[in-house]
Every structure is written in C-alpha cells, then in structure tokens.
C-alpha cells in the first residue's frame, strides 16, 4: 500500500506546522492538575466538612470533575487549531 506524500517536506501546510507548535505548547502541562487532584486519595478520604449532608469524599470528587473540565477547556482554547 503506497501512501500519497507531499512533493517535498517544505510543502507541509501551515495548519500542520501550527498543530505541531500547539502540541508542544506549555499550556498542555495544565493537564496534570486534575490527575494530582484525584489520584492521591489521602487528600480527600475524609468525612468532614460535609456539604448538604454528603461526606467530603463524595462531594469533593464530584467537584473535581469541574477541575478536569476547566483545565481541559483552557488547554483546548489555548491550543485550538
């Protein structure tokens, strides 16, 4: 199976060059934040403070979804094609 190749590497379109810059952007480091917030259970494995009578363990992790969404959204907007 042969694949069409551009005539020479210089013909790589600007969008691809831009995508490469975006993929290497420092903004991407922000994506570590939600991992740190959720993969260390001692941070949130406690009962108090409660919110609407729900133990901290549960409402914290539901709230952490917002951390995930906002960081991913910021990175998307900063690196969008």
């Amino acid at each position, binding site marked *: 199976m042969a694949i*069409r190749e551009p005539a020479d590497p210089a013909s790589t*379109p600007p969008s691809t060059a831009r*995508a490469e810059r975006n993929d290497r952007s420092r903004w991407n480091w922000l*994506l570590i934040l939600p991992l740190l*917030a*959720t993969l260390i259970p001692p941070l949130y494995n406690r009962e108090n403070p409660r919110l609407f009578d*729900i133990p901290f363990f549960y409402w914290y992790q539901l709230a952490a979804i917002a*951390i995930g969404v906002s960081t*991913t959204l910021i990175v998307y907007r900063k690196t*969008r094609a």
Partner: protein
Amino acid sequence: MFDNVNGVELTVFAVLFAAVSALGFVAARWRKAETLEHLDEWGLGGRNFGSWITWFLIGGDLYTAYTFVAVPALVFGAGAIGFFAVPYTIVVYPILFLVLIRLWSVSHVHGFVTPADFVRARHGSSTLALLVAITGIVATMPYIALQLVGIEAVLKAMGVTGHVPIIVAFAILAAYTYNSGLRAPALIAFVKDALIYVVIIIAIIVIPYKLGGWDVIFGAAEKKFAESPNPADGVLLPGPAQLQYATLALGSALALFLYPHSITGVLASRDRNVIKRNMAALPAYSFVLGLLALLGYMAIAAGIKPITNNAGKVDSNTIVPLLFDNMFPSWFAGIAFAAIGIGALVPAAIMSIAAANLWTRNIYKEYLNKDATPAQEAKSSKIASLVVKVGALLAILALDPQFSIDLQLIGGVIILQTLPAVAIALFTGWFHRWALVAGWAAGMLVGFLTLYQIQQKVFGPDGTVTIAKQHFGGSAFPLSKLGFDTTTTIYAGVLALLANLVVCVVGTWILRAVKVPDGEDTTRTSEYFADRDDPRVHDVPEVVH
C-alpha cells in the same frame, strides 16, 4: 416467562425499545453515503462526525448499561471503593487529550481503521499487529456479553424471566448493526443519553427526598458497613485500599481508550478540534456516573434486597432496577428500564463493529485475502459483527454469566498490555518491535498470575471468613504476596503494565546491542500533526497498489 410481570413497565419498555430499533434501521440513510460497502462508511460512519455526534457516540460507547448497573451495585456492596469510577473518568480525558489527536492525524493520513493497523505501520511488525488485534478482540467479547447482563437485570426487575426476550433483543440489534453500521449506534445514542439524563436527574432529586435526605442515606450506609465484618468496605476508604483505589482509577483510564471500540469513536470524528473539544465536554457523563454510583447508597437506605437467582446466588446487579421499581410509578420505572436497556445496545453495537474491523483489517486482509476490495472488507466486517454478537449471546446463555464478569476483569488487564505498542508508540518509535512483543507477553503473564491468586472472601456475621472463589476473585492484589509486610492492595493491571514496560525498555537495549534489525517505520513525524486541511489527510483512503 411472564409470571408476575408489571404490564405498564413492560409496555413502556417495549414501545421505547421498538422505537429505537426502527431508528437503527433508518440510520443507514442518515448523512447518506454513496455506498455502505466500504469500511470507512460502514465501520466509521464516513469519518466525518462533528462535535455533537462524537460526544453522544463516545459517551454512549464508554458509559455502558453494565456501568450503570454494576457501579451502583459495587457501591451498594462495598462502599467507597465503588466510587473509583469518578476519578477514573476524571483522569481519562486529560491523559488522552494529547494522545488521541496524534492517533487521529496519523490514522487519517494512512487510512488506519484499527489500532493494530497503526502498530503494523509504526513498528513494521505484522506479528505485533496480530497480537494487538487478538488482544483487542478477546478483551471486547466479554464486554459485549456484559451488556446483556445489564438488559437481563432490567428484565428480571420487571418480572420477565427466560432467555427468549434477550435473544429477540440481540437479534434486532444484530440486524440493524449489519444494515446500518456505525450510523445506527450514533443515532440511537442521542435517544439513549436523553433518557439517561432525564432519569438520573429525576432520581437524584426525588429519591433522597422520599428517603428523608442525604443524612439518612449516608447514615444507613455507615450503619451497614459498621455492622459488616468485611474490613475492606466502608463509606470512606480503609487505609490499605487507598493505593488500590488510585491505581484502579488510573489503570482503568489507561485501558479505556485502548479498547478498540473507543478508538472507533475517535477515528470517526471530523478533525482534531472535535476530539479536543470532546475531551473537555465528555466529563458531563462522569458527573452522571457519580450520581448513579450514589444510587447504591440509596438502595441501602431504601432496604432493597437484591434478587437471588436460581442457583441461589445473590445478583447485586439487580439493585438499581429494583430501586426504580420501588420508588417510582410503573410508567416512569418503565422509562428508566428502557434507558438502561437502550444503554446496552449502543456500546454493544460499537464494540461488535470494532471487533469486526480488527478481524477484517488485521486477520482477514492480512492473512486470508490480501487483495480484498473495499466491498469485500465491508462484507467481511458485517458478517464478523454478527459472529461476535452470537458468541457473546452464547457466553451469557450457555455459560455462567460470572464467567463473562471474570473475563471482563481479565480483559481490562490484558488490553492495558497494548499500551506501549499503541499509545506510547504515538510519541516515540524508540522501542524495538521484538521488545514490545516480549513486553506484551511479560505483561500477560504477570496479569494472569496475579489475577489467578486473588481470592474472593465472604465474611460471615459471626466473624467466620470463607473463600467464595479461589481464583479470579477481583482485581485488588495484596502486596504481601510479593513479600512486602503490608495489608495494602494494588490494581493487578498496573502491576502487569510495570512488568511490561520494564521488559520493553530492557529488551530494546539488549536487541539494539546485539544488532537485531528494527522494523521499518512507515510513518513520518509530521504526519502526527496533520489536520483536516492537510492534503495528505483524506476521509476515504485512496489506496494505491
């Protein structure tokens, strides 16, 4: 078969089920292509789905009926550990953000349909591609079978017993998948998600109100786990379970997008931005999943007793359907049941398409019919999708469903072993092809050995401990078995992955040192950044022989 059936529930369920089935057949004409006799059309819906369709499709794909039934059941039985589904679906998107766009780009330049297609081109090894394809098929089959467990739980709660209804449901599913390909689940996913959202939002407001508030709900759960002699349960994580919680969440997240069916959803999207936007928007489902998990505690507070099957085993998967049956008027319970039932159809369809594509691209075309035309490829996939579904049906009907549950547990561990060859390889071509093969084998071995040693214990009320299952009793591997003086447990899949990675790295050093030839990498660095307007990217690959 229909003794003690709730007529209203069953009628609502059947009407909704019939309506989405009709939708499945009509889907063939939605966003009509010139022909469905091409794998890019039948198997990837034309590779042209925008943000909304992709969101519904991937959401419908990942959050399955089995998830909706099994996660609350786990919370019902063991408490906090079952909530791992929330961190799992939080971390998955940031991790995949940068991985999937690269996979999309290189796949669209080369016309890859499956992860094994990529492996073959990246590492120049058809052996490795075959291993990845077989791993994908084996891991997906029990997952399809488990969707049936979800439907079965709902049917049981309505009082319907016997195998005929399941066979009918799956026959309908098989027929419209054959007919419409990926367009069918994409269209049905809209209905499924709308139903799920409505049901969950109402449930999460009405049930706590009826039970007397969250205080009462968590109070009942604390009382249950305080009385239970099992040291591993509780409303909070017991100390030794914390590592298991974190590694299970991380391991499940890494495994999720190695499953061929999730890659199918990603490759069907239109451009890189669609994927990025979806990584930000998909956690909306995580929120619903978190709320669903809490239904497990509501079932405790409501005093729900799971149905015991003919063999005398308690089927805790029935607690969510029973809770709805208990708390809601029949017509609404019927809608909720339909949401779960339809929730089984979408992923089952996508999974069977993905497994069929692996078969066609990496076994049929690679070994059986090298000169297959696009039409022959599409035909082969359509037939394979039927075979896969019949296999799943037989696995549930002829074997103990527990067998499928065990297999799915193993499936998560084995699919994780394709991480170096598929996901890490998107960033580096450094690994030697034979080191990847050896790493895969090492990961498989460690995975099986650890899962084999995990026992399932039952704690009697009088303090006695009996071994319910000698082997494959869960995924929490006690580190004490490795000689550590601790009660801490870890997710077996992560342990297997570590072994895999060590062998990949050391193996690559050794093979380079003794100058074993590398495979030819036919991908180029710039191809990993190609977007829709790159002339090398085409929706339908033009294969030049």
